[in-house]
């Protein structure tokens, strides 16, 4: 990945291709995005910002829809898991 960038997910570095969304970075790291009300792991469903299943905390801002946000260098992504 010559033009890749590195972000951290729950503190661990993950390298992704430039232009990848945060949801894609989560999938590449094998991470679910959120835990449901009853404790199920959830990942993206709609891929277009409608379903809110892919929400994560990015740089301290909670409830970000990871499918609509492109990774930026040194981004800090956290899940509530």
């Amino acid at each position: 990945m010559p033009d890749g960038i590195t972000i951290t997910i729950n503190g661990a570095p993950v390298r992704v291709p430039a232009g990848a969304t945060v949801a894609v970075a989560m999938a590449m790291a094998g991470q679910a995005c959120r835990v449901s009300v009853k404790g199920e792991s959830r990942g993206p469903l709609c891929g277009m910002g409608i379903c809110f299943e892919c929400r994560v905390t990015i740089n301290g801002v909670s409830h970000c829809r990871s499918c609509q946000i492109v990774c930026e260098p040194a981004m800090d992504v956290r899940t509530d898991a």
Partner: protein
Amino acid sequence: MPSAISERFDVLVIGGGPAGIAAAVRAAESGVGVGIVDDNPAFGGQIWRGKSEDEQPREAARWMRRLSESRITKLTGLRVFHQPETGVLLAEKNENLCELRYRSLVIATGARERFLPFSGWTLPNVMGAGGLQAMVKGGLPIRGKRVVVAGTGPLLLAVAAYLRKHGAVIPAICEQASWGSLAKFAGALWRHPAKVARGFRLKGELGTVPFAASSWPFAAEGKEKLESVTISRNGKTEKIQCDYLACGFHLVPNVELALLLGCGVENGCVKVNEWQRTTVENIYCAGEPTGIGGVELALTEGQIAGLVAAERVKEAREFFRERKKGRHFADLLDQTFRLRRDLAELPTPETLVCRCEDVTYSRLKACSSWREAKLHTRCGMGPCQGRVCGPAVEFLFQWTPESVRPPIFPARVENLAAVRATAPQNRSL
């Protein structure tokens, strides 16, 4: 108030897919001030986004170029959530508040996939068909992955072909419509040669991928994430190992913004007259929100809306014939991909219908209306505001959603507070 952007436009277009782009480009030709807004990081809508120029159909590349070369104000990553007063919309970009003022508005908010609940559908890696395609466009590596594509609608074939082209293995495409209705659909396509050509191209791209009609996902299985899918085919079930299930049941119009602005909606579609004008004087609507009709109809309706919004009514009339043809195709889609009632039998008592609030089928079955379901179970009251479970509930229980309330998307508390500060007369929040 923390306002990132405050802008005023003669014509403001909400939605940057084919309909919105066509409307904005056409309106801007006559020199009026035009703005176009989309909530995604890039324009093109779901259908055109994330493709390099040589990957795109010529028509798409042409429109994208016309947009980028125009003097239109292009705003991405903006999500409209409220109308504090007539002619003003509020949106959020990241956490910041944006105020958009308009003389005329074109609603081109597109459509979303319809999801139906079945056992295991909430497992990670069960995604919409368009949803998985969007993820791959967003960089998800799919080479060598096994993807079952299921549900209904022409999107299934397009997605399967796209995924295969990017190296995925497609063990099955399951279409719930019968061969009979698919044959009728194919037979009526002679009026739409462009669609036939696209169909043949898809057939070529799909090669030997197994396609089954009268077939649908019965259950998804896996521990932490999807491992296999059981499909129903010709009355028998069959388990297929896979990495992803790409599953969508055709599309539903995004009408929340139209409802917020008081535009009439009928049978789930925004009502428009021959000028694409809604029941509100200076608000137009184009593309999927007026009825699911595909990209050609969206472009045609978008051009009409943009021309009329810029007061070029005479030129708009030239597109009426094309629109009639497009609406014929929309009717065909509607008839062909109507959902069979068997699908209403898929959820088990424990199957979740509302994913935001984890509400099971059995809890909803005990209710007699949307209102009761909301009060007793919180179904449809989570962050998606019923965008996912609403169409499912409508199919399962024939409950139609009531009116929408602002904010139509969740917004930051400080931005909601700013609404009150700027519009003290507004008591609807």
